[in-house]
């Protein structure tokens, strides 16, 4: 972790911008995927289909874990 932070100190502002934009783009993709998962799970729950809610929750957990993990790579 400290290696990444040390390496990030030596990069140019342009590269830091690119990293930040890339992280925000990936986070947006995760959030959009989770909105879709939540909608699908709610629709399936209301329709009485029991097979969707738990897999959707697991995938949402994965998305959140990856998103939270990406925060560590945010440049200062």
């Amino acid at each position: 972790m400290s290696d990444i932070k040390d390496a990030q100190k030596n990069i140019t502002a342009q590269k830091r911008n690119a990293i930040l934009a890339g992280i925000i783009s990936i986070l947006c993709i995760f959030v959009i995927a989770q909105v879709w998962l939540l909608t699908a799970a709610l629709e399936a729950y209301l329709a009485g289909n029991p097979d969707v809610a738990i897999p959707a929750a697991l995938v949402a957990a994965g998305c959140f874990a990856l998103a939270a993990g990406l925060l560590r790579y945010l440049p200062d």
Partner: protein
Amino acid sequence: MRPQSVETPRSAEPKWKNDFPLDYGEDEHVSRREFAKFLVLTSLGLFVGNCWIALKQWFGPSKGGFPQIRIAALDQIRIGEMLQFRYPDEKSPAILIRLSETELVAYGQKCTHLSCAVYWEPGDGRIACPCHHGFFDVRDGHVLAGPPPRSLPRIPLRIQGADIFATGVEI
């Protein structure tokens, strides 16, 4: 040509400006780091929402089965009439409709669109939602017209002697 503005020296500014030295624009500013953190917070909220649905699914009433509850006596409802009752709990309104001497149907009364109370239209042979003009078939509860996305939940009935019992909910 516009005159050039002359900046007031800090010491000449009123005291409150020194106490709160942030510009309005700076106060409203959201950095990209803050935005990224907000996205992660949104992700957490969506994850919690998914967990809530999974828990509702896991501990919902369908896992434990439905109670068998007496709704009414057969002679309380005449052919073509509708009777309101609550099933499977006090928060769930439902309707019982007698179509013929031997044919009775029951459905949850909340429209599958936005939960308005539906009612039986004897003349048209359909169940109507007054809010957005959704219509359901009285025979099986499927959507005939309008915005509802799903059929009405059907309540299976059992007739025992002179009494009518609700036995479950089929979504």
